[in-house]
């Protein structure tokens, strides 16, 4: 900036200033050029550091989490004995539901033992109990649901895809090794050898794991079955609530402030308040939400509606600021022309200014939503950080049912004791990142396609 302050009109040559050729650089020019080169270098270093950090983050998340999208499964025939699963013999689901998952676990155990016998797999030092432990407890629950939904399966042999437990899965993902299994109280090297033998026979293999995106959370004993279904639905419902509430409120407020409100001290105060509100830590909104929405208004705990309302409070300032910027960017000539041909103030705003500001408003809204999607802190206080296994029903009733949310699920899983949940948490981060990238991409496309520049 120092050179810009030099007087524009060339004065008489200063003492000591010798006129030289423009092609040979004098000392000052060289210094200026060097300063510019240095500045460019700093810039490049700053960008480089940011890129390295980003790449590092992505690599660590991807290497830890991509494996969550594949899961080790055993495909085996399971005979469903009628005498165990349907004692009365009348295939009545109400009576059959008395057989608990423990009963179905035994059926699966027998099926695995039978499979081992049929394929001639014998592992030295492996008891039948230990052998059947490689099957996930979730498999029994899935089989039970399948049989209760279709009681006629009892007495037949069904081909089943059975989840293996988290340690066996970890073995094929490199998390568990023979050496660590020696020390691990939850898995033995013999069980790993059995898994190897099953894999060699083509019975056990890693499959694409859609269940990770559709199934609900699972308890600490079944990391292999934990999924994001409820969390994704919960996040979706919250975003719906945020969209429906914050866009009308935010846009109406900014149109009023920008186009209609008188400019006085009071509106200045409001402006300062909005800017401050945008900078309030999100946990504060959580405290507010607990006090107002749950304790005062009596809304249910853990429900997406409360999460959505809290996130709405958080998103409104972002939307107002973006919308006002978009409205300001519409040149006054548009308004003047509209008013000049006799449009009312409101017509000029709604027919001319608002459509031109729309891309900016949408961009701001989507960025506000993306911010809300990744927010965890306010949800801590309103009971969303919870273990929820039932899917919320369809909206609008569903927004009052308990649900989890994506960032909360990440937080939850990082706290679990079983190391398999680390992989799940990284997988959940990948899903969250994909959603955020999609939303930001939509925002960029909208801006590129519809934004007009003057």
């Amino acid at each position, binding site marked *: 900036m120092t050179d810009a302050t030099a007087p524009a009109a060339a004065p008489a040559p200063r003492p000591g200033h010798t006129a030289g050729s423009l092609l040979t650089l004098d000392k000052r020019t060289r210094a200026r050029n060097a300063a510019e080169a240095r500045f460019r270098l700093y810039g490049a270093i700053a960008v480089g550091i940011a890129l390295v950090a980003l790449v590092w983050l992505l690599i660590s998340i991807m290497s830890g989490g991509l494996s969550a999208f594949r899961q080790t499964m055993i495909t085996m025939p399971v005979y469903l004995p009628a005498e165990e699963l349907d004692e009365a013999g009348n295939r009545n689901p109400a009576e059959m*539901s008395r057989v*608990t*998952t*423990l009963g179905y676990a035994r059926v699966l155990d027998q099926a695995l033992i039978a499979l081992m016998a049929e394929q001639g797999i014998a592992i030295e030092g492996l008891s039948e109990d230990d052998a059947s432990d490689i099957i996930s*407890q979730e498999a029994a*629950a899935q089989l*039970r649901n399948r049989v209760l939904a279709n009681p006629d399966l009892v007495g037949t042999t069904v081909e089943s895809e059975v989840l293996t437990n988290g340690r066996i899965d970890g073995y094929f993902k490199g998390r*568990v090794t023979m050496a*660590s*299994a020696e*020390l*691990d*109280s*939850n898995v033995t090297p013999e069980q790993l050898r059995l898994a190897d033998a099953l894999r060699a026979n083509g019975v056990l293999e890693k499959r694409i794991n859609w269940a990770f995106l559709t199934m609900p959370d*699972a*308890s*600490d*004993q*079944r990391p292999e079955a934990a999924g994001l279904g409820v969390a994704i639905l919960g996040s979706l419902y919250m975003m719906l609530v945020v969209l429906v*509430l914050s866009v009308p*409120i935010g846009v109406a*407020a900014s149109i009023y*402030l920008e186009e209609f409100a008188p400019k006085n001290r009071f509106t200045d105060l*409001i402006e300062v*308040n*909005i800017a401050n509100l945008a900078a309030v830590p999100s946990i504060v909104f959580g405290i507010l939400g607990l006090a*107002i*929405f*749950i*304790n005062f*208004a*009596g*809304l*249910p*705990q*853990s429900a997406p*509606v409360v999460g959505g*309302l809290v996130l*709405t*409070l958080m998103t*409104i300032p972002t939307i107002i600021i973006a919308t006002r910027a978009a409205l300001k960017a519409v040149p006054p000539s548009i308004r003047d022309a509209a008013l000049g041909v006799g449009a009312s103030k409101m017509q000029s705003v709604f027919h001319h200014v608002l459509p031109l500001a729309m891309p900016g408003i949408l961009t701001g809204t989507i960025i506000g939503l993306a911010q809300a999607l990744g927010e965890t802190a306010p949800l*801590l206080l309103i*009971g969303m*950080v*919870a*273990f*929820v*296994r*039932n899917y919320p029903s369809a909206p609008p*009733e569903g*927004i*009052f049912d*308990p649900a989890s949310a994506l960032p909360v699920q990440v937080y*939850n899983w*990082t*706290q*679990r*004791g*079983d*190391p398999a949940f680390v992989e799940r948490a990284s997988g959940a981060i990948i899903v969250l990142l994909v959603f955020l990238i999609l939303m930001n991409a939509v925002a960029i496309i909208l801006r590129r396609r519809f934004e007009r520049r003057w």
Partner: protein
Amino acid sequence: MKSVKLTASALAIAAVAATAASARDQVQSAGSSTVLPYATIVAEAFGENFDFPTPVVESGGSGAGRKKLCEGVGENTIDIANSSSRISQSDIDLCAQNGVTEIMEVRFGYDGIVFASDIDGPSFAFTPADWFQALAAQVVVDGQVVANPNSNWSDVNAELPDQEILAFIPGTKHGTREVFDTKVLVAGCEESGAYEAFVAANNGDEDAAEEACMTVRTDGVSVDIDGDYTETLARIDANPNAIGVFGLSFYQNNTDKLKVATMNGVEPSVESVASGEYPVSRPLYFYVKKAHIGVIPGLQEYIDFFVSDDMAGPEGPLAAYGLVPDPELAATQEMVANGTPMGPLN
């Protein structure tokens, strides 16, 4: 603007609250992160085998859970508070103030607290006195109360490895810290005879002496971990010289990374804690709001199922995960079935 927004959100609330009249049909609980894994295992099995929806289990800490329980009676308050420490009189008073007069106290098992270090490091055999000598801010040397001079475990007890003292202990907001303070530090203080010296130094004030026993040194040798056990484990990964405090179930899930230390010569396990040989353990509770039984569908069935032999018994999945079964489980089952509310704290 603020008032505009408040009215707008008030309108929104009124609109949604009007449609929120539908009754809650699932049990909701909140509280201790130590109890959380057990509660989720029971909730999952309950949802699978009963015709009720799976209960919602929230974490957030024992104190927070009990406070939520005491917020009042009604469908927008929780039914059960999970707790790794006993309810306090102030909680009971708060409950009574908000109309929650009858609470059932259910003790469903015990949790062992273990000391573990990196799997590749040396093994340790501790006594509570070793921990007191290693971590207390003040210790007694030759009858004099002095600032703790010990820097290596071998300074504390010649039989321990010659390794720098570095301990990751739970932060003060954890229920585990309370147990560590009373069952390890104070016990060690009394064992080593420092307690009498502290009483003498404080002119006979026993409370002050106990306080002195529990005060840990602040020179970086003892590090409070406010996060959960996964953080302690990550810290041990980074500092293989350190010793961390864990829950028994967490250790059992990570036996390939951690080496457990014995206490008074006893190795921690579900059996040794149950028999009382292993000294550092604590009871785990959940507290049920009696007014909600019969109102929230499945609540009575859920708590019956929680304490049933199939779940909390020695052969059940909770014991397999690391819960130490309660020897008096049969009495608890009867109490839960009869719906006996808890009496005053003794």
